């Protein structure tokens, strides 16, 4: 090793950061599209009053795929997720343009009824939010209002299978009529997942579902996500990059409202295409 070479030696952080398009010119790199799309998003912009929060996002979410959305706080990933079942409708100043299709149906069409839409595209939130009702009623609530069960026995069956799919049945089967709020945080979150899947959704949106949970409860939810992906399409927003790496098939990286890169998760965490993705996942933002 020559002295000169040692002096010239680059910092580890310099490598691979020279390539990739400039963040100024916006074009999503990688593979944002999917051959077997469940949800097709094209040119979506989101505004809060005059302020634009999401810029021209085009993305396919594949059938039975787990897609993780990562990015720094305020990058628009949660806002984007909430577009997928029109949750942003609840915010008066929020305006969404572009096209989001659930298979053939245009989600952004103002004429569609959002109540059945939200049964088809369910959502699990950051904080477990069970209703102040019994465990049974928490799960039975959705099927009841959507008229999915005509008899008590049918409802019982929906509750049981939903709790089983959510990995909670064995822990609660002897106290179905105890209040849902009496469960631990991890159990409450799985109860919310059971409540979501009780109405047979096609897509489940998860907005940081584990950020209020301990590592063991988190591991159970992650295991559950893997099992659920056999029957559902899952889009998850997470602040934990390790979680994105563990649970997802593809990872989408958002930065300042723009969808920077979408690629196979394995590639994103070993050799991302975009320098901004690289900077974020290696912890180089200062």
């Amino acid at each position, binding site marked *: *090793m*020559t002295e000169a*070479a*040692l002096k*010239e*030696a*680059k*910092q*580890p*952080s*310099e*490598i*691979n*950061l020279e*390539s990739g398009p*400039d*963040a*100024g010119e916006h074009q999503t790199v990688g593979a944002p599209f999917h051959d077997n799309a469940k949800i097709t998003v094209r040119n979506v912009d989101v505004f809060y009053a005059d302020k634009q929060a999401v810029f021209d996002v085009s993305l396919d979410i594949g059938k039975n795929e787990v897609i993780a959305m990562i990015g720094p706080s305020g990058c628009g990933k949660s806002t984007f997720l909430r577009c997928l079942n029109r949750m942003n409708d609840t915010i008066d100043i929020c305006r969404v343009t572009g096209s989001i299709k659930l298979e053939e149906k245009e989600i952004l069409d103002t004429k569609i009824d959002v109540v059945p839409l939200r049964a088809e595209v369910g959502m699990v939130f950051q904080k477990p939010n069970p209703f102040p009702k019994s465990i049974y009623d928490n799960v039975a609530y959705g099927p009841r209002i959507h008229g999915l069960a005509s008899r008590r026995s049918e409802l019982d069956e929906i509750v049981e299978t939903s709790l089983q799919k959510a990995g909670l049945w064995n822990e609660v089967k002897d106290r179905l009529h105890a209040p849902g709020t009496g469960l631990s945080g991890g159990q409450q979150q799985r109860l919310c997942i059971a409540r979501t899947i009780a109405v047979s959704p096609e897509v489940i949106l998860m907005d940081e579902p584990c950020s209020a949970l301990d590592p063991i409860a988190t591991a159970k939810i992650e295991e559950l996500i893997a099992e659920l992906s056999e029957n559902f399409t899952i889009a998850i927003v997470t602040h934990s*990059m*390790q979680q994105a*790496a563990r649970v997802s098939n593809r990872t989408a990286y958002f930065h300042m409202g723009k969808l920077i890169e979408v690629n196979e998760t394995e590639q994103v*965490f*070993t*050799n*991302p295409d975009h*320098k*901004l*993705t*690289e*900077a974020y*996942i*290696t*912890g*180089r*933002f*200062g």
Partner: protein
Amino acid sequence: MDTLHLDQHISAQFNEDLEHLRTKLLEMGGLVEDQLKDAVKAIETADGALAEKVIETEKEVDQREMALDQESITILARRQPAASDLRLVMMVTKATRDLERVGDEANKIAKMAIALNAEGSDGGRGYVELRHLAANVIRVLNTVLDAFARYDVESAMDVVREDKIIDTEYKSAVREMITYMMEDPRAISRVMNIMWALRALERIGDHARNIAEQVIYLVHGTDVRHISIGDIERALESKR
């Protein structure tokens, strides 16, 4: 993007950890490089003391291998590095192993130097071939360490190409040695010692190539092992 500082991790300690890992690998490379140069010189100058020094250095090389592995594991456990950081750590653990093997081969050459000394030199049949191959191998090892220090894929590619040439030179040198042995059966034992040294040099060329492939992986994230040079060039072309 004026709010971005891409040249720094948020954690200064992480920067230091990675930099330390890299510096230690380069130091180990320098040590092994000296070992190789000394071993070859020991044969050329019939210097038994120098050969002993090479063998003595082996212990330090082994210690450094273990220390680097420990450091890499600590970084994996504590930092969960991703992308280029992850590739750097993986690359270092692999390159460390190759360097340790280079040290082993240098050791073998040093032992041959001692054996040749014991037999007494006889005008040096085979030394020309040995000197020629050694010069190329020493250069290749130096180039690959520079390529790592500078993240220089072009130099790494040179090493990959050069290794092919070294293999060819090795084969032709072996043919020469066989000729010498047929011409003078009394020299068989001595020429065999030179053949072992040639073999060790050829192996060092292979290790240099392995490290070169790791440098390419580090910089581009492309695995270029076990494919032809043409395929590597095409793979790298698409990265430009």
